């Protein structure tokens, strides 16, 4: 983190703080982090900023016990590929967990955390991380930022999220691999 320039950090604030990615209004694909052109539609892209709900499930994870420089104080820590509810896969640390509860398919939600600093006198870096979803987490903000819908507030039915089994997630992963091999377009969702 410490080798990042201040302007580079500043440019990333918007998407890091609020999980703001892109939504292609031509094919309905959603991307995170933001990309300049839809991978499917290319010149027919119609991209607008999109704020993800911050809800997702662990697609895969590992525990880091031998961390790189700058992350030693955090070790051991969990990092995971999180499948956002809207489609994209995001790599992130999973916080506030004792590791025992971690499993593929576990529901998680976004939290706002410090991800590093440029030394004791440098600028602080904040971003998204994920945390296992507790029953008491009831609502999240979702919606497009620059699109027509505007920011909406939704209530998240927690019971629905917890119904998903590990098996279903593995099946989903298998389906994605099969589609990629046969070069079929994914319906509605994108890998981001």
């Amino acid at each position: 983190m410490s080798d990042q320039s201040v302007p580079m950090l500043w440019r990333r604030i918007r998407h890091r703080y609020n999980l703001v990615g892109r939504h292609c209004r031509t094919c309905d694909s959603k991307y995170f982090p933001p990309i300049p052109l839809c991978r499917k539609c290319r010149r027919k892209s119609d991209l607008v900023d999109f704020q993800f709900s911050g809800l997702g499930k662990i697609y895969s994870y590992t525990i880091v016990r031998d961390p790189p420089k700058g992350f030693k104080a955090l070790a051991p820590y969990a990092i995971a590929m999180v499948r956002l509810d809207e489609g994209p896969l995001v790599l992130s640390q999973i916080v506030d967990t004792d590791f025992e509860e971690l499993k593929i398919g576990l529901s998680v939600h976004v939290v706002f955390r410090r991800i590093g600093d440029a030394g004791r006198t440098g600028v602080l870096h904040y971003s998204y991380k994920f945390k296992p979803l507790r029953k008491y987490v009831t609502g999240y903000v979702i919606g497009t930022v620059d699109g027509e819908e505007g920011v909406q507030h939704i209530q998240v039915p927690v019971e629905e999220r917890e119904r998903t089994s590990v098996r279903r997630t593995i099946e989903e992963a298998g389906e994605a691999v099969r589609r990629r091999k046969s070069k079929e377009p994914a319906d509605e969702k994108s890998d981001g």
Partner: protein
Amino acid sequence: MKHVGILGFGGYVPKYRISVEEIARVWGKDGKAISRGLNLEEKSVPGLDEDTTTISVEAARNALKCAQIDPERIGAIFVGSESHVYATKPTGTVVAEAINAPNSIQCADFSFACKAGTAAIQVCIGLVKSKEIDVGLAIGADTAQSKPGDALEYAAAAGGAAFLLGTGKDCIAKIEGTYSYTSDTPDFWRREGTDFPEHGSRFTGKPAYFRHVHQAALGLLEKLKTKADEYDWAVFHSPNGKFPRRAAKALGIPEEKIKPSLIVDRIGNTYAGSSPLGLAATFDIAKPGDRILMVSYGSGAGSDAFSIEVLPPLLETRERMPKIEDYIQDKISIDYATYAKHRRTIKVE
């Protein structure tokens, strides 16, 4: 214009806890006696990646979930804390970006020891009342510092709460009035550039905490022509479990009326987050028509007293975000070595 009210509130308490007995063990003290003396079992500890800014953001997001208002309506963001992460860059700038507030906001960090959060609420009330802004966001949050081995270490905790101040029929509570009492009383301070605060030990009691809390409370009651027994609930700044109980007793307020706000017993003194979190915890159980007396205390010294009436929308809106009790119960206990790492008293690259 009628009274200014609270449109939404939200709190946040980090997940980690260390017990008073564990801290006492390291310093060779009688943990049970200290725990009994302070009326304190354990305190909250921020995660390694948590600070006043992240706590403020989580609390503000909860307040927005509660109020369900468009963040574009926010015209001011003030964060009160004694552990702001920058000396010059306001915490509120990060909070604003993280909650999609507009750029056209007034923003500043507030400092007044443990009452910086309630000072922020008062300024928002003034701005809303004068129609300078539509909605104001006031936050009190801290990751309290304490010197290792010092008496403060048993209580100095982390947490915060946020309040959206505005007007209209959606208000969950009405601010009936406020009253402040301030004097030059050096009971606790942290000099510029130093890591930990110093304090005047027993001097922090009678001439400092109790004098200011009582004067502010009595001043408010006189200003509004009300009596202490007209309030259903009371919230006092809680540096430990003992002081708020004694403050309530001196004002003739029975202990059961301060019980919902006595979260200090289980999470410690969250400094600028203390009375705001106590108010949020009281909102979690109060019913429409209830009146709440809140008195903060900031060393240095001053107290802000508030008279608040609960309105019917609270019953529906408070179900939209986690309760303070949810955060208190969702915890991981840590030992002193891990605590030292979390508080960065062990330096790691």
